[in-house]
C-alpha cells in the first residue's frame, strides 16, 4: 500500500515537473523570456566591405599602365568583384576557372599571398594593379624579384627545399591527374632537386635572392620566357 502511494505521488511530481518545464520552454519559444545572456538577434550584420580605389592619376603615377589600360582593368575587376576587394575564396574560384582539369586552389593561395602585399587578407584594386604592373611592365630584375617573393612562402629571404616543394606540388596539382606521362609522387621532388642543383650555387640548401637572380639572368630560356607576356594588356 505504501509503495503504491509513493508511486502515485512520485508520478504526480513528475507530471508537475513536466508541465512546468514545458511552459517555460513555450515562453522561451515565444520570446517572452530569455535564458542566456547573449542577445536574441544572433544574425550578424555582414558588413559589406566596400573599397574605393585611389584616383586614376595616382595609380597612373604609381604603375606603368596608361589611363586607358587602367580603365579596362578596373572595369573587369569591378565586374567580378563589385565590392572592390577580392578575398581569397573568390580569388581561388576565379583562378580555378582557367585550369578546369586540376586543382588550382593551392597555387592560387600562394599567388594571393604574393599579391596581397600588405597581408590584410584581401586584394584591393591597388594591390592587383601594382602586381600586374611589375609582371607586365616591370624590368627583368623586378619580375625575378616578384617570382622570388612568390616562392618564398614565409618571406624570410630564403627559399628552402620545403617551400619550393610546396610550390612545385601546387603547380603540378593544377595539371590534374589526366596527364601524359602519368604524374608520379616523386615528380615534384625531382623537379625541386633539378631546380636546386641549378640555383643553389653554394650548396647550402637554400636559395637567396642574389643566387636566384644571378642564375636566372644567366639562363637563356628563363630570360626569353620572362619577355613572353609583354603585350598581354
Amino acid at each position, binding site marked *: 500500500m505504501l509503495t503504491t502511494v509513493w508511486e502515485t505521488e512520485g508520478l504526480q511530481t513528475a507530471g508537475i515537473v513536466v508541465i512546468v518545464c514545458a511552459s517555460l520552454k513555450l515562453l522561451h519559444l515565444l520570446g517572452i523570456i530569455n535564458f542566456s545572456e547573449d542577445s536574441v538577434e544572433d544574425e550578424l550584420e555582414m558588413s559589406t566591405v566596400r573599397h574605393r580605389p585611389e584616383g586614376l592619376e595616382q595609380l597612373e603615377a604609381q604603375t606603368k599602365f596608361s589611363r586607358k589600360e587602367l580603365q579596362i582593368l578596373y572595369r573587369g575587376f569591378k565586374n567580378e568583384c563589385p565590392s572592390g576587394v577580392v578575398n581569397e575564396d573568390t580569388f581561388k574560384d576565379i583562378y580555378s576557372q582557367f585550369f*578546369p582539369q586540376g586543382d588550382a586552389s593551392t597555387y592560387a593561395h600562394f599567388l594571393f599571398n604574393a599579391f596581397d602585399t600588405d597581408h590584410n587578407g584581401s586584394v584591393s584594386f591597388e594591390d592587383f594593379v601594382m602586381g600586374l604592373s611589375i*609582371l607586365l611592365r616591370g624590368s627583368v630584375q623586378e619580375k625575378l624579384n616578384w617570382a622570388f617573393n612568390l616562392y618564398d612562402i614565409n618571406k624570410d629571404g630564403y627559399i628552402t627545399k620545403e617551400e619550393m616543394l610546396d610550390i612545385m606540388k601546387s603547380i603540378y596539382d593544377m595539371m590534374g591527374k589526366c596527364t601524359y606521362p602519368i604524374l608520379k609522387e616523386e615528380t615534384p621532388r625531382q623537379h625541386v632537386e633539378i631546380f636546386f642543383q641549378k640555383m643553389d650555387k653554394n650548396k647550402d640548401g637554400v636559395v637567396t635572392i642574389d643566387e636566384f637572380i644571378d642564375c636566372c639572368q644567366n639562363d637563356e630560356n628563363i630570360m626569353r620566357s620572362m619577355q*613572353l607576356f609583354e603585350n*598581354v594588356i
Partner: protein
Amino acid sequence: MAAGVAAWLPFARAAAIGWMPVANLPMPMAPAEKSKRQDELIILNVSGRRFQTWKNTLDRYPDTLLGSSEKEFFYDEETKEYFFDRDPDVFRCVLNFYRTGKLHYPRYECISSYDEELAFFGIIPEIIGDCCYEEYKDRKRENAERLMDDQEDNKDSKQPNVTFRETMWRAFENPHTSTMALVFYYVTGFFIAVSVITNVVETVPCGATPNQKDMPCGERYTVAFFCIDTACVMIFTVEYLMRLFAAPSRYRFMRSVMSIIDVVAILPYYIGLVMTNNEDVSGAFVTLRVFRVFRIFKFSRHSQGLRILGYTLKSCASELGFLLFSLTMAIIIFATVMFYAEKGSTSSKFTSIPASFWYTIVTMTTLGYGDMVPKTIAGKIFGSICSLSGVLVIALPVPVIVSNFSRIYHQNQRADKRRAQKVQKARLARIRISKTGTSRPFLHSKRNGLPNEALDLTGSIEEGNHQGAAISLLESQHHHLLRCLEKTTNHKFVDEHLYEQNCLEGALQSYPSHSPSLSSSGSLTGTCCSRRARKSSHLPNASAPPGPLCGLQELSAVHIQHSDRPPLSTSRSSLNLMPKEVLCKTNCKSSQITAAIISIPTPPGTTPDGDGHTPSSPSSQTTVSSNIVKVSAL
C-alpha cells in the same frame, strides 16, 4: 568560360611568370593579337530601342548570334548600328546575360515568345540561372501539356477509319463521344446506384408481421432482392467483358485498379451461386457479401472528383504515412504513461498497455467516449497533455492534404517534381559538359595542333592566323596559358580516355617506370611516336620477364592500342624534328599497331631502339613494313 572571368585572363597569364624560373623547357610563343583594338561601343537598335555595350561584352559568348560574326548580317551601314526587328523587352534579358553571365526569365513574359527570342539569339535555355529556372520549367511544362491536350482533342475529332474495337474503347473511356456511350454510361451508373441501395436496404428491419420478430427486409423478400442482385451482376459482368474485349492491352487492363474493383464487385455473387447452403461455409459467405460494397467504387469512373481524391491520397501517401507513424509513437508513449499512472488506483480500467491504447486514441482524436477515464491526479495531468498533443498531431497533415488536392487538380505534384529532377540532372550534365568544354577545345586544338606547333618553331605568324581564325583570341590565349603550364611541368594534358588507357598499361608493366627519366630529360626524346621509343626502352630493362605475363602484355597492348589515338607529341627542342614529325603523322596511324608489336621480345625489337634515336626515315619505313609482317604473324 564565364563572362567576368574572361576579364581576368590577362591576370592569369601575367601570373604565369611565376612558373618561368621553375620550368626546364622553353615556353611556346604567345598568340599575337592581330591589331591592338581599342574597346569600342556597339549600338544595338532593337525595334527602335537603342542598347549600347562594349564589343568585348558581346565577345564573351562566341557561339551566340551577338558574339559571332552572324550579327554582321544585321549591320546597318548608314546608321552604323545593328538593327534587330525583335522584342526589346526580352532583348533586355538577353543583353544582361552577356553583361552578368546569368540569364534570367521574367515572370510576366510568355514562355513561347521567350523561347523564340532565345532561339533567335542562339542561347540555350539551360543556362537560365537557378533563381529563375524552376519557374521557367514549370511554365514550359504547363505549356507543353496544354499543347498536348489540344492535340488530343484534335486527334479525337478526326479519325477516319478506326476499328470497332477502338471505337468501343473510346466510348468506354470518354462517354461524351457518342450518344450510345452516354446511354451506356448512365445505365451502368443507375445500376450501380440500385445495387448499392439494395445492399443497404437489405439489412433494414422491415415491418414485422405480428407473430414474428423483426426481420431485415432481405430475409423477408428474399426472391425480390435476389432478382435485383442478379440483374445488377449481369449488367456488371457484361460491362466488364465488353471492356476486356475493347481494351487495347488486355493484360494492362486486367492489372488496372478499376478492373480489379469490377472483379471484386461481382465475384461474391458467383461464389455464392457456386456454394451450397452449407452451414460451415455460410459464415465465409456472409463475409464475402461485404465485398459487394466495393461496387460503390465503380462510381469513380463516373466522377472526376472521386478520382482526384484517390490520386491525392496516393500522392500524399508519405504524409499520411508519417502521420500514422507519429500517431503510433505518440499512442504508445501516452498509453504507457497512462498505464503506469493509473496502476495505483483501484478498479482502474487501464488493465494493460494495449488496453490503454484505446483510451489514448479516443483522447487524441478528441472523441472522448468516457468509457475509460483516469482517476489519479497524475493520470489526469498526463491525460490532458495527451489530448492537447492529439489536437496538434491530427491537425497538422490536414492542410497538406487539402493543398495537394487542389494542386492535383492542375498537376500531379510528386510526379512533376520527379520529372523535374531528371531534367535537372540532364541540365546539370549539359552545363557540366559545356564547362568541361574549356578543356576539350584545348585538347582538340592539340590534336589538330601540329601546324600550330610548327608555327611555334618557325615563328611564322601568317600560318598561325589561318589556324587562329577558327578559334577566338580569348581561346587561343587560354590555350597558350595551358601550354605554358604543360611546359613548366613537362607533362601533357590528356583526356580521361587516354589517361585510363595509360593507367592500364602502367599497371600491366610491372617494371619500374622510366617515365620520369624520359620526361625530365625532355630534350633527349624527339620522336613524335614516343610511345614506340618508350616501349622499346622498356624491353632491354626487362631482364627476365615471366613468360605468361609478357604474353598477356602483348595481347593487352594490342587490344589497347586498337583505338584511334592521336599522335602524342613531346617537346620540340630541336628543329630538325620537323621532317620526322611529318613522316610520323602518316606513320602514326599504323604505328599504333606496330607499337604493340614492338613489345614482342624478339631480336628485331632492338631495331626500333636505333630508330628512336636516329632520325632516319628509310629505316623507320623498313621497320614499319617489317612490323606489318609481324601483324599477320600474330
